[in-house]
């Protein structure tokens, strides 16, 4: 029995996601059956964290527009142990669905008070916490009338490059889910739902910001490799 369940990770090639056509390898990956390599060696990433790095609402002279959010959760390994002192980075669009990136030409306003990038380090219980604003949905050119559900990009290192993860956090009950090839590339329903954050009243701060919980599980060094599938 494999520890990585069928369909819980996206395949390398998922035809509805058009950007992969010329960018996804077509030959089988070479399976390394013994973990005798330094692929499992510790990697710590980049640890210089600035004072406002985890508060995306305080990085400019004024406050960004949008619904203020607290995004918090735990980073765990597959055995449920907290992943401590690991770098968590996020980036996102502004409330209008526009990224502070030169390539983004969506005709929605930029917000001079919002960059949309943050980083922090998990504590001894594997917890992280960001203050930000809710990103807007935005169109993209994958197919006619294609829209990305609102999401926040996450990058986490964990204890080695085996646990390296880049993912996207979504918001509950987004009506765009059925139409989004990125979300749908994860074929297992339960695995898809684990990318969806949960509204959490206990994280919510009265008169200030709504709380969303997003827990993240990283592969450990003993994981069985991905099962290739179509």
């Amino acid at each position, binding site marked *: 029995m494999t520890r990585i369940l069928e369909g819980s990770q996206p395949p390398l090639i998922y035809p509805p996601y058009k950007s992969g056509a010329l960018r996804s390898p077509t030959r089988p990956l070479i399976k390394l059956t013994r973990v005798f390599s330094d692929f499992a060696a510790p990697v710590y990433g980049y640890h210089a964290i600035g004072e406002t790095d985890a508060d995306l609402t305080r990085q400019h002279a004024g406050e960004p527009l949008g619904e203020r959010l607290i995004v918090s959760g735990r980073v765990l390994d597959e055995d449920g142990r907290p992943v401590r002192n690991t770098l968590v980075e996020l980036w996102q669009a502004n409330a209008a669905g526009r990224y502070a990136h030169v390539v983004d030409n969506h005709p929605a306003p930029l917000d001079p008070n919002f960059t949309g990038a943050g980083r922090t380090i998990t504590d001894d219980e594997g917890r992280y916490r960001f203050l930000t604003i809710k990103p807007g949905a935005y169109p993209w050119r994958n197919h006619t009338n294609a829209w990305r559900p609102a999401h926040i990009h996450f*990058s986490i290192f964990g204890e080695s490059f085996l646990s390296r993860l880049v993912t996207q956090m979504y918001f509950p009950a987004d009506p765009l889910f059925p139409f989004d090839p990125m979300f749908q590339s994860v074929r297992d329903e339960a695995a898809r*739902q684990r990318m969806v954050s949960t509204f959490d009243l206990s994280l919510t701060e009265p008169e200030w910001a709504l709380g969303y919980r997003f827990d993240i599980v990283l592969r450990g060094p003993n994981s069985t490799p991905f099962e290739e599938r179509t």
Partner: protein
Amino acid sequence: MSGESSLKHVSTSDELPLVATASQTVGPFFSFGLTTNTALGRMAGPDTPGERIRLVIRVIDGAGTPVPDAMVEMWHAERAGTFLFGRLDTDPAGACAFETVFPGQVTEGAQEAAHINLCIFMRGLLRHLYTRLYFDGDPALETDAILAAVPPDRRGTLLARRDDTAPSAWTFDVHLQGDRETVYFDL
């Protein structure tokens, strides 16, 4: 609905092992979040012992077009037990240049060729790719256990080549598809 009632919130009652969170693409807009610190291209500090090298990574898609929006992460042993990490995004020519030292041995006395581990991210990849760079002409290539797991006709895709136009400069091409598709590893 509250957090307490949600099955998605990982709790102590969840069945172990937990299932790893699904990967999603890094997308086209990561650079302002992940690669603003260009110092991460200078992996070796002034006090790092070893031969300084400049390593240019080029990323090329299945049509032979350079990929201008990839993120390349690398890490390698400086010497046994000490690792160096680097991260850059590719430029309009699909390239990024790391300054580091020639890799040392991961473990004392191991039978392995000098190598650098790479992790490749980009729009179009739903999961990142793992590959490994070796150095053309290294006599230890013959006995490296990971290279031995690669079909002989594809081993060349893992070799960085000397750039004769500059001293201590190497180039490594990451081909995503085609006849020269780079070997990627399933870990």
